[in-house]
């Protein structure tokens, strides 16, 4: 049978395909070429020799010769592997509990899990220092008081880093896996149940294999994001004596002038690693038709009845979300009400004040305007990114255009670029190309588009591969145009992935620091720049107050986003 999508180049799809190629070349390929070029140069950008057509591998030899680099690489591998495993298990358990079971308080648990993403990473890490530092950690204080054991917990350790990082990453795993669980046809599970399998057996033998693409995507993203993580290695890794890749890049490039050759070389190595992981991912999901569970037949997600076990899953989930979100949020709220940085004690509670909120809100230009800038950037870049990746994912998974894999490669390749390198590439690029974007929100938005495309792409692709092409073929037979099919069939069915991705991108764009810091000037400062400002000035109480304000704004934005999203898409059968 001829697939409807084969005719897309003659329809509206052809125009979209060409536009996508142009956008990806501009947004991804040009910064990449700049980085590849720089990694093969000893001269700095801007030097006359930088433009000459002579290249060297000196930067690569130099990078490999740094002993600490290899030590850090090994640490990074352990740190990323263990954190990925833990966060995946935590996130998948929560996603399954919330989306596919009749566990009480499921929606509340889901909401609180996602709430974690909203709290800035710096605040979370400092909160855990206050909770589990050997000297001043409040948890250690309680343990000593009740058991007499001193310094039981040590956040400044490899396992302390893994703990904080796993909790940091668990909501991402939750988002990816819940999108996949929502798109899984329950009739297969029903068939398993009719055949006599229990809930666990059904999950293991039916549900899990069906969500293999999402599992692979989750593991891939969790691993890469942990490799890229910075706050935890910087704030805990120094004391834990666990140097990792990002701290090595940071310390190797922290001196002025920045060694752009070395920084670009590190970026290239991360690119190679990411590409290798992507190849593994593609091999795992190469038979996409196996995962197509959303067909033209009736489809309604349904929850599994766990019987009495639902109370256990409820208790476990509540404990997890308390650790993931509740405890750091309480610490942030507590600190925001303190006039100065102090561990939580009864004596400290006497000093509760709103002075931090008052001073932030009184200074409109300093704190409120950046919050508005971040709102525009968060909502704008999330919406544009999701539309872009929906189109990319369609061509990659549902068309037979010969060069479609290039789209996936270009869309995913920026994952290999550490934020500092990407921010610098954009800064250099727009200094070189005299477009009037420096100092505007546009330059940050363009960088975010490149930055978050890979993550958004995996969110949507995991849902896209589950949609059977027979739906589009049926629509084509009925005379539906390409545009109509995309709007009427794919977008509604992709809703779980699109909403999860939109939420993830919006919140991360809101929180993003490194790129915003590189590209910020007086008028385009974002909320994250203010967070960094407050952090570097040591104003933890004010930083926490700002974090609470950001939390409230993001909750409102997410609620609005969900309301809009619910206007189209499948209805869940409870």
């Amino acid at each position, binding site marked *: 049978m001829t697939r409807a999508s084969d005719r897309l180049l003659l329809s509206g799809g052809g125009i979209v395909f060409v536009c996508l190629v142009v956008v990806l070349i501009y947004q991804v390929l040009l910064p990449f070429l700049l980085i590849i070029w720089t990694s093969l140069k000893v001269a700095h950008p801007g*030097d006359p020799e930088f433009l000459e057509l002579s290249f060297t591998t000196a930067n690569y030899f130099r990078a490999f010769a740094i002993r600490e680099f290899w030590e850090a690489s090994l640490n990074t591998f352990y740190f990323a592997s263990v954190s990925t495993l833990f966060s995946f298990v935590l996130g998948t358990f929560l996603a399954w509990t919330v989306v596919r079971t009749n566990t009480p308080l499921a929606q509340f648990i889901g909401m609180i899990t996602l709430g974690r993403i909203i709290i800035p990473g710096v605040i979370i890490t400092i909160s855990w220092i206050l909770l589990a530092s050997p000297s001043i950690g409040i948890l250690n204080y309680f343990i000593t008081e009740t058991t007499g054991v001193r310094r039981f917990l040590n956040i400044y350790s490899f396992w302390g880093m893994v703990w904080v990082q796993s909790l940091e990453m668990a909501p991402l795993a939750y988002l990816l896996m819940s999108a996949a669980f929502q798109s899984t046809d329950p009739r297969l599970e029903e068939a398993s149940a009719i055949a006599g399998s229990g809930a666990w057996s059904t999950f293991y033998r039916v549900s899990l294999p069906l969500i293999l693409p999402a599992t692979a995507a989750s593991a891939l993203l969790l691993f890469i994001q942990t490799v890229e993580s910075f706050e935890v290695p910087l704030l805990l890794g120094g004391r834990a004596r666990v140097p990792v890749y990002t701290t090595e890049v940071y310390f190797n490039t922290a001196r002025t002038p920045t060694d752009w050759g070395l920084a670009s070389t590190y970026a290239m190595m991360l690119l190679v690693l990411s590409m290798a992981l992507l190849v593994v991912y593609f091999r795992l999901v190469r038979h996409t038709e196996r995962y197509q569970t959303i067909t033209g037949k009736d489809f309604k997600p349904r929850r599994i009845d766990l019987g009495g076990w639902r109370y256990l899953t409820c208790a476990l989930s509540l404990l997890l979300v308390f650790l993931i979100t509740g405890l750091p949020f309480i610490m942030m709220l507590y600190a925001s009400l303190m006039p100065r940085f102090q561990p939580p004690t009864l004596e400290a509670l006497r000093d509760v004040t709103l002075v931090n909120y008052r001073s932030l809100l009184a200074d409109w230009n300093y704190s409120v305007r950046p919050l508005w800038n971040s709102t525009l950037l968060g909502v704008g870049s999330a919406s544009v990114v999701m539309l872009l990746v929906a189109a990319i994912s369609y061509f990659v998974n549902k068309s037979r255009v010969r060069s479609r894999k290039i789209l996936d490669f270009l869309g995913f390749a920026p994952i290999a670029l550490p934020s500092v390198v990407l921010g610098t590439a954009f800064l250099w690029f727009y200094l070189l190309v005299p477009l009037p974007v420096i100092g505007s929100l546009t330059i940050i938005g363009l960088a975010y588009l490149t930055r978050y495309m890979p993550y958004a792409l995996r969110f949507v692709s995991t849902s896209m591969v589950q949609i059977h092409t027979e739906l589009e073929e049926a629509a084509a037979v009925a005379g539906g145009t390409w545009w109509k099919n995309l709007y009427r069939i794919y977008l509604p069915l992709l809703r779980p992935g699109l909403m999860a991705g939109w939420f993830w991108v919006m919140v991360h764009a809101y929180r993003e620091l490194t790129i915003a810091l590189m590209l910020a000037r007086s008028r385009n400062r974002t909320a994250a720049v203010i967070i960094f400002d407050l952090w570097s000035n040591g104003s933890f109480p004010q930083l926490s107050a700002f974090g609470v304000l950001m939390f409230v704004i993001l909750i409102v934005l997410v609620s609005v986003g969900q309301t809009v999203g619910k206007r189209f898409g499948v209805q869940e059968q409870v």
Partner: protein
Amino acid sequence: MKKIATTLIGIISAALLSASYAETLYAAAAQTPAEQLYAELAKLKPDQRTKRLEEGARKEGKLTFVHTWRGKIAREFGSAFEKRYSYIKFEMSDLGSQDAAERFIAEERTGRHLTDILSLAVPDLAVVLKQNLVARYPTPATSKILKQYGGFVDKDNRWTAWYWSEHGISYNTNLVSAAQAPKEWFDLCKPAFKGQVSFDPAETRFLAGLYTMMGEEKTKQWLKCIGENQPIIQTGHTQRMELMLTGDHAVQGDNYLYAGIEAMRKNPKAPYAIVYTAPILAFAGSMVISRNTQNPHAAALMADWALSDEAQKLTSDFLRGPLTIKHPYLPDNIKLVTYNIVSEDITNRLHEAWNQYIGRTK
């Protein structure tokens, strides 16, 4: 695909050529208008000079400034300048000193003259000076600088020093008594302070100060014995100070001393003490004017204003060291080691020694 590749090469070539063109233009300019103006101004009497600067600034009507103070104090500093020169449309960014230098270099190298004047720590200036990016600005304002800070003044007028900052030792008085406290820099190597002394990761400006105080060999010995005493390496000066004051560890092997004084302003009971017996390492913060500034009159006004009574009083209120009046909290008889720029070769060797003995995280 061939067409795509051709188009790509075209776009890249255009981008690189535009940079090349800008670079050529930049290299060709032997003396910029700003430098010519400052040379002429140096010949005028003070009142004529001021008049010409203010008239010129009025015509320019704007100024782009990068401050390396952060947050509220930077904003208050900027607001005071704006109030004094209300006819200048003032645009300020606040960045760390090294980031500011990096961004300034990037702008100038690509021929985009977006910044008129920056406030940079003098030890971070080496790379900017090396690339000949700053205008020489002789100003009579420096004559007000107190004698003890004369070492901060650049005889070649490449920067205008306007405040000073410090690296010194301090401790938590709940964890260390005055008698047990370190008295000298080498005391930090004592077994009593094993695992109790914190530092930020290696910083050129700190290493340059140690070098000025001790010389290269002794600095390396100090780094070695500090490394053997299991120091705490944690990024973030103010956070590190806050952690020490909450009892996380006992001693700040190096930090800005004002961070503790600021904490005491918020909480007078904060357990903080400065080690006055060990020399304090002092470096200047300076105003640096871009040689390609588009607003040379307004930039010069800013450099001069930074040494005005008003700006110096603000500097003191913010607990930084003013150059024309008394320091807000340090006594006059303090042992001060002042320094400016230490050569790149030496700082590279000191960084290597830091990595060898202390490591980035060890």
